[in-house]
């Protein structure tokens, strides 16, 4: 077999950034590009498609299939750039001052680029244990991709020993991650001409009271805890992401739609928090709305509920990832990742460790520093050596 062609991480990243994989778009062109890249290296990919043919996960194995290996997992989609002011085209990788700018550089195409750039080295090395590449779709919205991808990982001939999800953590092994629960609240009021405002039920006003309640609840957690040290934000947070209602100023808004989420510490019971929130909507706001119109109502749909994880500092998994990353600090994160899903669906220990920093994610002029790319490459080198060591 010919020497596998080596391509640099930055070159691959440039290709990946050019795909506008905002979650509302298909990610299939990027998945197909990756499958093509792997195929050129002689690596076969499994494409996992659910209902939408435009969306796909990719799973590929390099090395022996009869030994427990390591999964390198990441998502292919990115958040929208709508309304953001960028210093350069977000879908053209742009280098400036030792930084690579582009949507997805931090969250989290650089991890995929590092893993893909590592493939020729994985192929050349006498691996005793395999490495699995697992790339999902729709992490930023529904996490649907990770569910079927998790099932595909579970169906591998040999159950992997560990899954590393390369969300931006500055290449630190992340021992704890908060849960994340997402909701949509629909407020149904009663329209009226605005000169007769008291005759209507103003859906925007009730949604606003709800938003203020959520904001105050978050402030209460910030003040009173519970607290766990090591997280960027050491307490549970509650946040309103979107709110829209009303059609014309002289009509009392009949409808308002609000999206909110909470991210709880692994020890802070999600059921309790959910109960507090729903009870304010159902027992305080709704009865008030119904004083004016019996048909007024609030409907709350929990469309995503994903637990976090907490790993023991002394566990073999944490110790291994620390040795690969070269960092020993105790890091916990407040953002969401697919690690909990892989732990759940594939029943393998999963934790986060990846290049870049979450502070840059989702923002205009998102970037990754070249230093982080270098650290990631060192990680892949150490991983290659580790996989060559007999069991």
């Amino acid at each position, binding site marked *: 077999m010919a020497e596998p062609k080596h391509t640099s991480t930055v070159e691959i990243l440039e290709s990946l950034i050019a795909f506008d994989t905002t979650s509302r778009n298909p990610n299939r062109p990027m998945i197909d590009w990756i499958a093509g890249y792997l195929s050129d290296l002689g690596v076969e990919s499994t494409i996992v498609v659910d209902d939408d043919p435009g969306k796909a996960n990719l799973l590929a194995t390099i090395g022996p299939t009869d030994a427990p290996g390591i999964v390198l997992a990441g998502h292919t989609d990115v958040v929208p750039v709508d309304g953001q002011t960028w210093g350069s085209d977000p879908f053209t990788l742009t280098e400036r001052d030792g930084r690579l700018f582009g949507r997805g550089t931090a969250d989290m195409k650089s991890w995929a680029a590092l893993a893909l750039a590592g493939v020729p080295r994985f192929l050349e090395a006498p691996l005793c244990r395999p490495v699995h590449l697992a790339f999902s779709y729709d992490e930023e919205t529904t996490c649907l991709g990770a569910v079927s991808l998790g099932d595909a990982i579970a169906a591998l001939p040999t159950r992997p020993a560990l899954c590393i999800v390369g969300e931006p953590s500055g290449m630190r092994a992340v021992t704890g991650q908060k849960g994340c629960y997402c909701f949509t609240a629909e407020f149904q009021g009663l329209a009226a001409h605005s000169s007769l405002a008291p005759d209507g039920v103003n859906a925007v006003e009730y949604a606003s009271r709800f938003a203020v309640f959520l904001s105050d609840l978050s402030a209460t957690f910030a003040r009173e805890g519970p607290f766990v040290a090591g997280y960027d934000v050491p307490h549970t947070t509650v946040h309103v992401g979107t709110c829209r209602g009303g059609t014309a100023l002289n*009509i009392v808004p009949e409808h308002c739609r609000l999206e909110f989420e909470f991210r709880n510490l692994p020890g802070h019971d999600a059921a309790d928090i959910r109960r507090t929130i729903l009870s304010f909507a159902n027992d305080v706001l709704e009865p008030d709305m119904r004083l004016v119109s019996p048909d007024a109502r609030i409907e709350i749909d929990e469309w995503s509920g994903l637990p976090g994880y907490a790993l023991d500092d002394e566990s073999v998994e944490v110790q291994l990832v620390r040795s690969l990353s070269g960092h020993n600090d105790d890091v916990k994160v407040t953002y969401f990742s697919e690690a909990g899903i892989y732990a759940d669906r594939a029943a393998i220990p999963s934790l986060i460790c990846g290049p870049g920093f979450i502070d840059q994610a989702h923002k205009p002029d998102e970037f990754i520093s070249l230093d982080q790319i270098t650290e990631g490459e060192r990680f892949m080198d150490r991983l290659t050596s580790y996989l060559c060591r007999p069991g």
Partner: protein
Amino acid sequence: MSATSSRDILRELIGFDTTSRNSNLELMEWVCTYLRKLGVEPLLVHNAEGTKANLYATLGPADRSGVMLSGHTDVVPVDGQNWSNDPWTLTERDDRLYGRGTCDMKGFIAICLAYAPQFIERATSMPIHFAFSYDEEVGCVGVQTLIEKMKSMPIRPAMCIVGEPTDMQVVTGHKGKRSYRVAVTGTEAHSSLAPQAVNAVEYGARLVTYLRSMADRFSADGPFDDMYDVTHTTVHTGIMGGGTALNIVPQACEIEFEFRNIGSHDGDEIISEIRRYTDEILVPAMRAVAPETGIEITEVTSAPGLDTGADEDVVAFVKSLAERNDHAKVAFATEAGLFQDRLDIPTVICGPGSINQAHKPDEYVSLEQLALCERFMDRLVEKLS
């Protein structure tokens, strides 16, 4: 020249589609031609683009103040409405005249014009002024240029009757109305770091909730004016929008709100209280996290209320014309407040037709209402000599 009937003139006026988004110049040209034939030279006050105009005319002695009859020439759209007949063709059915603008408010203008020959002939001691505007339906916009023009006129009308549909009842008041657009600027961040950012939607929601608490306070504690259906000032948020994705802390939120204040409730004080809340409570909390954040409140429209005292001469005068002693206040806004507020012209509202038919499909004015308005004009003619 032989007299033209109100109905003939109304048929002409309804034939012009003067929906506010259109030009009203063809209608105005028709009115100018009509008046010039009677020897009256009207003044047209155009908008900046020259596509729309107000009309002002004096019938009778020009060297003294008289009674101004005022109305707007524009009408609301018929878009999406299901009409039984062409809205731009005056159609008689069951003693009613159907057509867009019949009650709001070309019926009144048609009667004014039909009485022009009599006004000219009989007005010896006191003239009649016509003031016909454009763009009333989109926030009393057009009449403002006419009002500016009138400020520099040597002679201003002594009183004004705005012929909005009141079933020929004498209306002495309507609420003021101001509308505002709010831009809340926060900072964006990944939602996992929410406490480190400024959530524009959450601060916007605090403002909306404060506005609602003001509305509740006015409803509970007043001030009150029992002549209104809704006896107090109302505050209401009509539109709110902010945020792009759930996992991003919203950087921007836009809100539109309005208040409608009764005469004894100072609109300046209401907006000052709102600005105090944002400037002293919300913005400092936002800036403690990020100095580039803020809340900007911009006035979009401002129409003063009408609050004419029941004991004012204009009320007694118009009651005598309407042959009734009661008076009322209404929920809808008109140009009357502007004439009173900007030009100090004592003003009441009295016109044919009912507001219940305005803005709806199959808008109509009854022949009975038109006859009542004509009787009103007959008595006005008598007072001019």
